[in-house]
């Protein structure tokens, strides 16, 4: 997550004030298909002879699987395959790096299909493939499982207790000075430190301390996980599925099933939302195993209930934050402790939450300690800026109270302690080319910040940080015989990336945007790319696209020189045509169409592919201000007004940048106000559906105003920074701080649902 940030950039971005396409707002190339319903999503593919695959899931949150008897189910007419954990190889305990989330392959396989133990209600135990959905359902009901039900634990602090039921008897807390001798649910303790904490607090005139907790929340994508998989008798596999990365699907299927990666061709379907939740596999390895056994293609589609019970939410958490400051607001010390629920296997985002917790602040003395804790709940998956919104909720709530205690304006307090270019970030590297100060200023000078408030209304401010990543990426650009272009990448388009890829290529080639067609290719048709996540695609894949287009321009100049019979250094590429710079030669310009038509005379087809490992994704900062009104009798919170400013580097397609900011805010508001996993005492999720798991509906939100601050990232050809994750970091605290203003009381526990607020008001 920290790469070459410290090093100054070598070349200036292409943004020389003469951009024709980058920075404009053309209609997105995938738009027509999506609004007319023609776009094909994960569940839309059908094949002849296709079977229906379904999963048997554990009704218990924690149980030893004594036996699974599938004989009766197998005997049912129409049942073509049944698999259990025994159908999968046992994998080594090794970490695999895949973009935003590293995975332990053994844990990943055990999450896909349980072996000896069911670790959460909803954990897959067996799967069937049958000729119809009804037969598959009946078959599931005929599978006989004998369980030894074990005590379970859901809450993070309960799981950390000495007498808690232990999920994994070979899990020993990592990150301790001495290796523990007793297995524990605490998978890891991590610590980031600077300076002398005690001295820092001793220097402080004011110390503020509080405890916070947040509930587990789901990414809430509209499209449930879905795939079709087919394995032929020669072992060659095809998978069509909706995910954040077809190469990620290929890798994980290859590992979980022990198949060569080259034998699996994964075609990405259109994706109906991911937000990090589709950066792992659930169904694809099962569908392949069922196809292998049955010899037929198998389609699997999760129900919403399965999505909630068996796919990754993000962590519930408990935090404490202690801040020390001088009377003038200068922070002298910060002590942060984060306890994160990981779900059934280690891997909560507590590491990233720790690294981001104080990333907006320049504090001489601090300690951040994080605990990654396994619980009998679904294994968490990445969720948009994983971990950062959670720690920001604690730190930004505490900063708000500190500002109140000091009688300081909340923006002024943040400006006083803000990181700048040259500041050594709390998580290690030295910041360069950051636009944080400009973003704070954008909110402070925004009319929203000084607009009057009415009774029962409050205003909250919060800031947020996210690293943004680059990473391994491939892009190809091919020129058709008429001089139009195709841009081929390996990254699912979640937030409008087809548009930005086409725009960057069109800018370099000098073509109108309509002449550039972007496609997202399958794993056999383009080189490897890391998944769409970490806000990396426009930055990293965009870099590959730009370089591929630049390579073509170089080639076109060479070809034009051949045709013009001049030397290559006498040819320039200007707005889509080769121009001979020596006017005395009287050469007519050659357009891309001219050159394409004559490609046979100049070396054959025109195209290029670039594979690179993009470094230097500029980190992003967001500053949000939110106004709420609280109904003091019912505890309902109405979001009256919301303005989000963010340093975006350079907005390639401003509408989609604004869309990302608005979407992040909408999700963050849901997290703040109503979203939560509710478990009954038996460890079963009580609200596994969109009726009682409440994401915001359109009428819950005002129009969200955005302010794009453009402080260019010199490492990207057009100056872009990642933008998709930063905007979900501040809203939890921005809303909570606004509620504090409206009711005069601090709410430290999310979500801020009406019953909790009314109870707080009643408590006086």
């Amino acid at each position, binding site marked *: 997550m920290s790469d070459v940030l410290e090093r100054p950039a070598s070349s200036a971005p292409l943004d020389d004030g003469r951009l024709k396409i980058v920075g404009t707002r053309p209609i997105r190339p995938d738009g027509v298909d999506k609004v007319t319903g023609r776009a094909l999503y994960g569940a839309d593919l059908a094949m002849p002879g296709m079977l229906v695959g379904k999963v048997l899931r554990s009704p218990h949150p924690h149980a030893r699987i004594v036996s699974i008897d599938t004989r009766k189910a197998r005997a049912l007419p129409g049942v073509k395959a049944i698999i259990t954990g025994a159908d999968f190889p046992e994998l080594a305990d090794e970490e695999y790096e895949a973009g935003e989330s590293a995975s332990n392959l053994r844990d990943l396989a055990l999450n896909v299909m349980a072996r000896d133990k069911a670790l959460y209600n909803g954990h897959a135990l067996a799967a069937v493939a049958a000729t119809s959905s009804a037969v598959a359902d009946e078959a599931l009901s005929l599978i006989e499982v004998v369980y030894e039900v074990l005590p379970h634990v859901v809450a993070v602090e309960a799981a950390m207790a000495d007498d808690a039921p232990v999920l994994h008897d070979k899990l020993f807390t990592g990150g301790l000075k001495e290796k523990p001798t007793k297995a524990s649910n605490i998978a890891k303790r991590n610590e980031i430190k600077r300076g002398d904490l005690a001295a820092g607090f001793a220097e402080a005139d004011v110390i503020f301390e509080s405890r916070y907790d947040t509930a587990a929340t789901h990414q809430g994508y509209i499209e449930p996980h879905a795939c079709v998989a087919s394995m032929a008798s020669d072992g060659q596999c095809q998978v069509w599925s909706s995910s954040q990365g077809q190469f990620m699907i290929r890798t994980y299927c290859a590992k979980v099933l022990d198949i060569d990666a080259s034998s699996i061709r994964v075609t990405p379907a259109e994706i109906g939302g991911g937000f990090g939740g589709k950066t792992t596999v659930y169904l694809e390895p099962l569908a392949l195993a069922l196809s292998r056994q049955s010899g037929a293609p198998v389609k699997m589609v999760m129900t919403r209930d399965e999505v909630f019970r068996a796919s990754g939410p993000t962590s519930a958490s408990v935090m404490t934050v202690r801040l020390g400051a001088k009377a003038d607001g200068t922070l002298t010390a910060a002590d942060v402790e984060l306890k994160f629920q990981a779900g059934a296997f280690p891997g909560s985002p507590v590491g990233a939450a720790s690294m981001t917790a104080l990333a907006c602040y320049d504090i001489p003395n601090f300690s951040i300690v994080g605990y990654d804790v396994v619980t009998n709940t679904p294994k968490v998956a990445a969720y948009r800026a994983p971990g950062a919104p959670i720690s920001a909720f604690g730190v930004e709530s505490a900063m708000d109270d500190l500002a109140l205690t000091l009688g300081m304006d909340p923006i002024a307090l943040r400006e006083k302690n803000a990181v700048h270019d040259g500041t050594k970030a709390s998580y290690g590297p030295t910041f360069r080319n950051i636009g944080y100060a400009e973003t704070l200023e954008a909110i402070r000078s925004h009319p929203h910040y000084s607009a009057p408030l009415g009774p029962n209304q409050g205003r909250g401010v919060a800031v947020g940080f996210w690293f943004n990543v680059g990473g391994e990426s491939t892009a190809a650009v091919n020129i058709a015989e008429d001089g139009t272009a195709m841009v081929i990448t390996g990254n699912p388009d979640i937030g409008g990336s087809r548009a930005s890829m086409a725009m960057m290529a069109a800018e370099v080639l000098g073509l109108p945007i309509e002449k550039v067609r972007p496609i997202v290719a399958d794993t056999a048709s383009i080189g490897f790319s890391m998944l769409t996540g970490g806000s990396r695609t426009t930055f990293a894949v965009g870099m590959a696209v730009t370089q591929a287009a630049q390579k073509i321009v170089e080639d076109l100049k060479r070809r034009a020189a051949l045709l013009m019979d001049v030397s290559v250094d006498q040819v320039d590429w200007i707005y889509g045509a080769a121009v001979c710079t020596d006017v005395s030669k009287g050469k007519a310009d050659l357009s891309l169409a001219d050159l394409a038509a004559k490609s046979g005379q100049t070396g054959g087809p025109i195209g290029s592919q670039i594979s690179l490992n993009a470094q230097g994704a500029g980190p992003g900062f967001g500053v949000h201000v939110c106004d709420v009104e609280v109904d003091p009798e019912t505890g309902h919170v109405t979001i009256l007004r919301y303005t989000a400013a963010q340093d975006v580097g350079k907005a390639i397609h401003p509408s989609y940048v604004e869309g990302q900011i608005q979407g992040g805010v909408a999700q963050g508001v849901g997290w703040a106000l109503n979203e939560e996993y509710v478990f009954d005492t038996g460890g079963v999720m009580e609200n596994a559906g969109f009726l*009682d798991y409440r994401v915001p509906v359109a009428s819950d939100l005002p129009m969200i105003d955005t302010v794009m601050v453009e402080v260019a990232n010199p490492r990207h050809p057009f100056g872009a920074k990642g933008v998709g994750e930063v905007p979900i970091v501040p809203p939890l605290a921005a809303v909570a701080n606004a509620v504090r203003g409206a009711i005069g009381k601090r709410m430290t526990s999310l979500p801020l649902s009406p019953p909790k607020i009314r109870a707080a008001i009643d408590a006086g």
Partner: protein
Amino acid sequence: MAQLDFIAPVSPEQAAAALLAGGAGARPLSGGTDLLVQLRSGRLPPGLIVDLKRIPEAIGIRQEAGGFVIGAATPGIALGEHAALTAAWPGVIEAANLIGSTQVQGRATMAGNLCNASPAADSVPALVAARATCLIVGPAGRRTAPVESIAVAPGRTSLAPGEFVLEIHLPARSARSADAYLRSIPRTEMDIAVVGVGVNLTLDADGVITDARVALGAVGPTVIVADAAAEALIGSKLDDAALARLDTAARAAATPISDKRGTADYRTKIAGVLARRAATIAYARAEKTA
């Protein structure tokens, strides 16, 4: 394996006979917005669906004897578009129109809302406050029953095998009368009532409340008719003291549980808050009627 059957009879008697013959697995369908969801989720096993929409009496709104007759399969959208009905029973109609979204309104009915017997059904407290009745058709013929007698427990009705609701009747309206319905949901729409309150008032020429009826939803297994809450209003001009008495009586009448949607304590308090607010709206509406 279980199978799903569907028929759409054109007379009430055919429908009753089919329901009786279909036994426990037979279900009337008005809008299907509960029934189909329950079938798809597996909460209900597949059986026989008896679609009521082809029965002429089950569709439409008719003015009879000063009141209104609403066919059981009439969707919410048609209720809201009926000017005379909306003028006479604004509370009933706002309750019915709160159900779901525009899409759901195209199908969802009050009869389905009533017979689904959810404690949180939105239109039912308003119908109860309005003293609505049902015309029930069954194998033994026709009978009339007050709406509050239909649901007996969550998901269970008093309808006998083969019986279904053909019409909902709203009584004739006296002068200076109006109703109102309010619900509390965590979001602003597409949600299920944590508390719902229907209030129906009649005033005299001086603005004194002469008749009142208060019904509470989602704070008990079925809708609660809060008589003491109504009595707290009668004889008053809805002054602060009357509102305070109403609040206390509504809270006293509520018997909620704590669940994922709200604590019992919260629901009790909100029953009082919404009773006051709904009464205030109904009062203002009644004052405006001729």
